């Protein structure tokens, strides 16, 4: 009986090429992950020793001899306030725009805005910073947390709008038709059925936008400037984590530099937490929808 695979040489060569390609791909993957691992390890090793309750809760200060003491409480609070305000501005606008792009694609306004939205998403953040500097800082006469929040929301809106649009577009047409066939109006269908079905994608987009905004430094340089005091009003120069990392890191003073590592570690922890939570959200929900298709 003839053998099923008479040509051993070709088969061996094919297996060897297969192994080679697989190895190359694995190497590429490892190389891609290495920077992330190295950064996290570096920041963790230099930052963790600095973290303490007083580090997180006290303000920057100096002892009589000029040695820096104190912590990053003002920067933590400043960043937090700015993110919250940026969130409150960008979520309604971004989600609203995303809904419009997805549910009313036939409108001219929709196609044009969707395109400009994509352009804005790729804008250099320092340009956005300059824009807000001119429009808000110069006209109000002061650096402010408000200006910073506005700059951050301009960065966040396109991200949220795009992911909202994508998540809603995935919702099957047949679900919209099912709702409309029950005599439900179009806007109620969008609000109660479409958004409800696409909600995990929406949440993911918002979380990713927040994670991005947390780390933006350039626009903050031009809008909030930074400060050593605890924020008391939205209309004064305010401290923020990325700014603190930048200033302390370049200061040349070993204590301040150590504090910069600590702040960097905090930033990375928060970003990792946000990113991981999106995996959890998206993974579960997509699983449910897939099961019934």
């Amino acid at each position, binding site marked *: 009986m003839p053998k099923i695979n008479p040509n051993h040489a070709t088969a061996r060569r094919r297996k060897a090429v297969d192994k080679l390609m697989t190895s190359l791909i694995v190497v590429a993957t490892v190389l891609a992950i290495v920077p992330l691992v190295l950064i996290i390890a570096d920041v963790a090793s230099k930052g963790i020793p600095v973290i303490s309750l007083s580090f997180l809760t006290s303000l920057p200060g100096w002892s009589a001899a000029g040695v820096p003491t104190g912590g990053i409480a003002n920067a933590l609070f400043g960043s937090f306030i700015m993110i919250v305000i940026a969130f409150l501005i960008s979520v309604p606008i971004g989600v609203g725009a995303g809904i419009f792009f997805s549910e009313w694609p*036939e409108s001219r306004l929709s196609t044009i805005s969707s395109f400009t939205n994509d352009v804005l998403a790729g804008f250099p953040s320092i340009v956005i910073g300059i824009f807000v500097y001119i429009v808000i800082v110069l006209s109000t006469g002061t650096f402010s947390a408000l200006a910073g929040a506005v700059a951050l929301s301009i960065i966040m809106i396109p991200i949220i709008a795009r992911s909202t649009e994508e998540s809603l577009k995935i919702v*099957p047409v*047949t*679900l*919209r*038709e*099912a*709702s*409309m*066939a*029950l*005599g*439900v*109006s179009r806007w*109620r*269908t969008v609000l*109660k*059925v479409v958004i*409800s*079905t696409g*909600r995990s994608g929406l949440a993911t987009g918002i979380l990713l936008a927040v994670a991005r905004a947390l780390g933006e430094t350039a626009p903050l340089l031009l809008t909030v400037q930074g400060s050593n005091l605890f924020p008391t009003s939205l209309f004064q120069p305010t401290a923020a984590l990325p700014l603190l990392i930048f200033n302390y890191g370049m200061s040349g003073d070993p204590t301040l530099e150590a504090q910069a590592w600590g702040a960097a570690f905090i930033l990375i922890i928060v970003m990792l937490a946000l990113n991981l939570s999106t995996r959890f959200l998206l993974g579960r929900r997509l699983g*449910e*929808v897939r*099961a*019934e298709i």
Partner: protein
Amino acid sequence: MGTTKIEIKDLKAGFGGLSVLNGISLQISEKSITAIMGPSGCGKTTLIRCLNRIHELTPRAWVKGEVVLDGANIYDPEADPVAIRRRIGMVFQKPNPFPTMSIYDNVVAGLRLNGVRDRKILDSVAERSLRMAFLWDEVKNDIKKSGAALSGGQQQRLCIARALAVEPEVILMDEPCSALDPVATAKIEESIMSLKQDYTIVIVTHNMQQAARVSDLTAFMYLGEIVEFGDTTSVFETPKSELTEKYLTGKFG
């Protein structure tokens, strides 16, 4: 046979430059089951989607002509499509329960989304609709479970219950059993037959045996036109058109 519930007058419809319906005129009798059958592509789905104004939701879709429900044209410019769709319900070919809602929430969705909040009303509507769809006994203990966790046949009966909950006068069914096995199909046909006492039913099917089993009146469509229409027994046993006869004997389709 009975009074006319819906009169379709010279209905033309299509997408963009493509014409799918070439002038359909038909009378749908009240409280009976009218089957629309024909080979793929003849326009039967488009026809049924014009009856509850779902067709126009597709981009580039157009409609000409009149569809008169109880004496009023649903395509009148003053007519409200949302109100019409509450009177004419639809069950789709592939079961489409709302995936994020439980069985109970699915059934009462039509009421809830229109503002009905009273728990007692919703509870009684849910039970009544599920009974009419012959699904109550199977799910009454699991009514808060996800709608997507049911089998295909159960999901389709859930969709029927959902359509019934808003108390329409007419129920349109677009090949409701084509994605289901014979056992599930039989259950659904049973519930359809029991519904005709209270509702006017129009069912599109490419399964002519189903049309013969279930309907009182049958229309045969081909290439966007009604070739023959009459009571089911006559159409099947003594078709007037040669085309109908060819379709029934399987010479094409």
